[in-house]
C-alpha cells in the first residue's frame, strides 16, 4: 500500500508544533499501524532526517503506552482496540492519514506524538490502593468469599490500561472514565470497601487539580475506550462520591 501521512511534529513542550507531510510505499496490509511508522522512521533516518517520536511498548494492546489520534479518533478507526493492534488492512491504498498526539491540557506534549500522562499516576497516588501491609502477614485468600458477579465486575473495571483515550475523546478532556474505573474496582471488593469514602474524595480532588475537565455525560469516552470500560463505572463513582459527601 502507498499512503500519505500528515503528522504532528513538535520538537519539545516549549515550542510550537505543526503538521508535516510524508509518503510511505509498499506497506503490507498485514503490518500494524506502528510497524508502518517504524518503516517511515527508517526511511527518515536514511534520508538524514529526524524520526517521528511516538510512545509504545508491549505492542499487544495491554500496556497502555501507545496513543495517537488517527484521523481524529484516539487509537484510530475500529472499536475496542489500541493503536498497536490497528492493522493497515483497515485503510485503503492511496489514503491520506492524519496522525496527531492525544490533546488535553493535562497531557502536555513531550515531543511529536508523545504526551505526558503522569497526571493519571498522581490520581492513583491519591488513593488507588488498599492499605494493606506488603510484608506477608495477610489472612488466607479464601477467608473472605467474593460474589462471582462482583468479582467479575471488579475485574472488568480493573482492565483499564490507563491509555488516556477517554480523555482525548472527550470534548471537556475529562478523566472521569479512567478515575471511575479505579474507584469501581476497589468499591466492588470487600477488601476495598473500608477506605472507600476517602478514596473517592481524594481521587476526585486530585483529578480536578490536574486540570481535567468536567463530565457532561457525552459518552465519547466509552465509545473510544479500547477496553470497553463502561459508563456504569461513572455512575458508580458518582454514587460513591455522593455517599462520601453526605457522611
Amino acid at each position, binding site marked *: 500500500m502507498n499512503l500519505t501521512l500528515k503528522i504532528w511534529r513538535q520538537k519539545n513542550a516549549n515550542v510550537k508544533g505543526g503538521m508535516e507531510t510524508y509518503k510511505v510505499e509498499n506497506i503490507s496490509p498485514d503490518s500494524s499501524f506502528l510497524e508502518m511508522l517504524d518503516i517511515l522512521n527508517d526511511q527518515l533516518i536514511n534520508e538524514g532526517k529526524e524520526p517521528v517520536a511516538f510512545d509504545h511498548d508491549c505492542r499487544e494492546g495491554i500496556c497502555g503506552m501507545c496513543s495517537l489520534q488517527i484521523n481524529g479518533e484516539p487509537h484510530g478507526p475500529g472499536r475496542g482496540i489500541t493503536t498497536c493492534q490497528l492493522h493497515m488492512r483497515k485503510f485503503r491504498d492511496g489514503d491520506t492519514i492524519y496522525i496527531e498526539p492525544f490533546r488535553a491540557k493535562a497531557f502536555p506534549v513531550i515531543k511529536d506524538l508523545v504526551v505526558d500522562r*503522569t497526571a493519571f499516576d498522581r490520581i*492513583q497516588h491519591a488513593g488507588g490502593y488498599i492499605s494493606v501491609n506488603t510484608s506477608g502477614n495477610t489472612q488466607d*485468600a479464601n477467608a473472605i468469599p467474593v460474589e462471582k458477579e462482583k468479582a467479575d465486575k471488579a475485574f472488568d473495571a480493573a482492565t483499564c490500561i490507563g491509555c488516556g483515550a477517554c480523555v482525548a475523546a472527550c470534548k471537556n478532556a475529562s478523566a472521569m472514565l479512567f478515575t471511575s474505573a479505579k474507584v469501581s474496582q476497589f468499591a466492588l471488593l470487600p477488601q476495598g470497601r473500608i477506605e472507600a469514602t476517602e478514596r473517592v474524595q481524594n481521587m476526585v480532588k486530585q483529578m480536578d487539580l490536574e486540570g481535567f475537565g468536567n463530565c457532561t455525560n457525552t459518552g465519547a469516552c466509552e465509545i473510544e475506550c479500547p477496553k470497553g470500560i463502561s459508563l456504569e463505572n461513572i455512575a458508580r463513582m458518582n454514587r460513591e462520591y455522593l455517599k462520601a459527601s453526605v457522611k
Partner: protein
Amino acid sequence: MATLDSKAPQGSLADKWTNHKNNIRLVNPANKRKIDVIVVGTGLAGGSAAATLAELGYNVKAFCYQDSPRRAHSIAAQGGINAAKNYQGDGDSVYRLFYDTIKGGDYRSREANVYRLAEVSANIIDQCVAQGVPFARDYGGLLDNRSFGGVLVSRTFYAKGQTGQQLLLGAYSAMNRQIAKGKIAMYNRHEMLDVVLVDGKARGIIARNLITGEIERHSAHAVVIASGGYGNVFFLSTNAMGSNATAAWKIHKRGAYFANPCYTQIHPTCIPVHGEQQSKLTLMSESLRNDGRIWVPKKLEDAQAVREGKLKPTDIPEEDRDYYLERRYPSFGNLVPRDVASRAAKERCDAGYGIMNNSTKEGVFLDFASAIERYGNEQAHIQGIHNPSKEKITALGEEVIASKYGNLFDMYQQITDDNPYKTPMKIYPAVHYTMGGIWVDYNLMTTVPGLYSIGEANFSDHGANRLGASALMQGLADGYFVLPYTIGDYLADDIRTGPIPTDTPEFDEAEKNVTEGIQRLINNKGKHSVDYFHKKLGHIMWNKVGMARNARGLTEAIKEIAELREQFWKEVNIPGTADEFNQELEKAGRVADFLELGELFARDALERNESCGGHYREEYQTEEGEARRDDENYTYVAAWEYTGKPSEAILHKEDLKFENVELKTRSYK
C-alpha cells in the same frame, strides 16, 4: 576454574528458609530510615520489592524507562500464576510444586531456591487478594484454578487472560501507597546506564532522564536490579519493544557474573512471523493447548498447496493430517512442555511441512474443530436437544470455546484477519523468556557486594526450562517475600554509614563512562539505522543460536556477532542530539549491549556439550531425536566473568547438588 558458593543454608530442605530467616541479621526500624535502596525496574519483581522495602521503612528510589511503573512488561503475562494452595484438594503440596519445577527445569536449578519458591507461593496469593487483585472466582465466591503446562494438578490462579496485568496493577497500587507517603521516590522515563561501586560495594547508579537527556547520579546503600529478561537479543520475541539487557549487562561489566545466558525459552504457541516488516511477535496463551490439537498435513504436496492458498486446511481429511505431538508423545499429547512442543514444530517445518504462505514458511495448525464438536454435543445433551443439526452443534460448541478463550480468539483475528472458530489458528514457536541472567546466591545477591538481582533479570529458579505460570510466581516471591529480608543481613552493616555522597571520584568515573558512550554513539553519523543492526543480530541469533544449535553454527555466530558489533560502531546513524528526548539513542544503547551479550550467549551454548531444556544441541540427541542431558559433566550453573571482551569471559561453575530429588530423564512419551 573457581567454584561459586550459593550460600544455601544447611539443614533439611523444608527448614532451610525458616532457619535462615531466624539467623540473618535485622535492621531496626529507626535505622531503616537512614538507609537508601535503589530498585531498577518496576515489573512484578521490582514493583513488589520497592513497595515492600518502603513498607519495612527503607527509603526507596525506583526507576523504569516507561512513563509509568504500571506499564512494565509484566503487564503482558496472560495465563496465570502457580501456588501450592491445594484449594482443589487434588493432592498438591509444597513438595509437589517444588518437584515439578525442578523436573520441568531439567535439573539445572538450585534445590534450596526452588523449595523456598514453592514454600512462599501460597503467601503470594493471600497478599494479592488482600490488595484487591480480582482473580477469577467460582459461584461459591472462592478462588478458581486451572491447570497449566502438563502438570497433574490445578494450581494456577488467573484473572481471565490478563493475570500479569492484574498482578502488576496490584504491585503498582502497593507502590502508589508508598509514593503517596513519600517512602518511594519514583523516577519514570529514566534509564539506568551504569552502576557505581565504592570500595567494591554497589553504592549507586548513573541514569539518563529520557525526556531531557540529563545524566543523573543517584546514590544508595544497596542497588537492586529487576530489569526483566533479554529475549529481545533475538530482535523478534514476545517481549515488549523496550525490554532490554542494559542494566544487567552494565553490572556484568562491573563484576557481576552472568549465568547460563544460553537458556532461552522458545514458546510453542505464538502467531507466526508475517514478513520482513514485523516488529514483534504475539503469544497465544499456552492454555489453548488444553483444547486445541496441533497438526500439519501428512503429504508434502498438501502442505505446499496450503502455503500457496490452493487448499484450505478444513478440506484436508482426517487421515491426511499428522497430529505429530499426539503421534510422538501419546501420554502427554498436545500438553508436552514448551521446549518439547517447540522442537517438534521445528522438526516438521524443517522437513517441509510448514503451512505459512510467506518467506519463512514456518507455521503449524492449532485446531479447535474437535473441541467445538465435543463441547457442542455435550451442550446439546445438557440442553436436551435431540438429534441436533451439525450447525447447531457447531454453534453450541463455539459458544463454549468463546467463553473460555474469547479474548485470545479476538486478538488472533485482529492480528491475522482469520476467524479461528472457522479455520485452524496458525502458530509457530517464538522467543519468550530467558531463564539465564545475573548470577545470584541464596540471598539474591550478585557477586558484587550490595548489588542484588531479582525476577527475570536473575538466573535463579527455573533451570534450563521454565514451566508455565512460574515466572510471575518467582518475580513476586523475590520482591514481596525474599529480597526484603535477605537484604537486611547486608544492610545491617550500614546503619552508621550515613548518606552516600555523589561527588566522589567513583561517581565521576561512572558518569564519564556513560557520557562518553553516548557521545560516541551520537557523533558517529554512519549510514544505517539502529534497527538495521538489531535485525541482523536477530537473524544470526535465530538461525544459529535459536531452537537448535550445533558447534559449527555457534562458532560461526560468535565470529559474525563480533563483526557485526564492529560494523555497528562504525556505521550506526543516530539522528538528533543527546540532550533531548531521543528514542533512537535509547535503542542504540540497548542494541550495543545486545551485540555483546549475543556473543557470550553463543559461547555459553558452545561450551555446554549437552541438550537440556531450552538448550538443544543437535549433536546431543537420542535416536528418536529427543534431548540428551549429560549429568555427569554438566550438572552446574555456568557463571561468566567479564574481562573486557565477551569472547574472553571466564567461566566459573556452581556445582548443583541434588539431595532430595533423583535425576531422571524427562520423558513425555
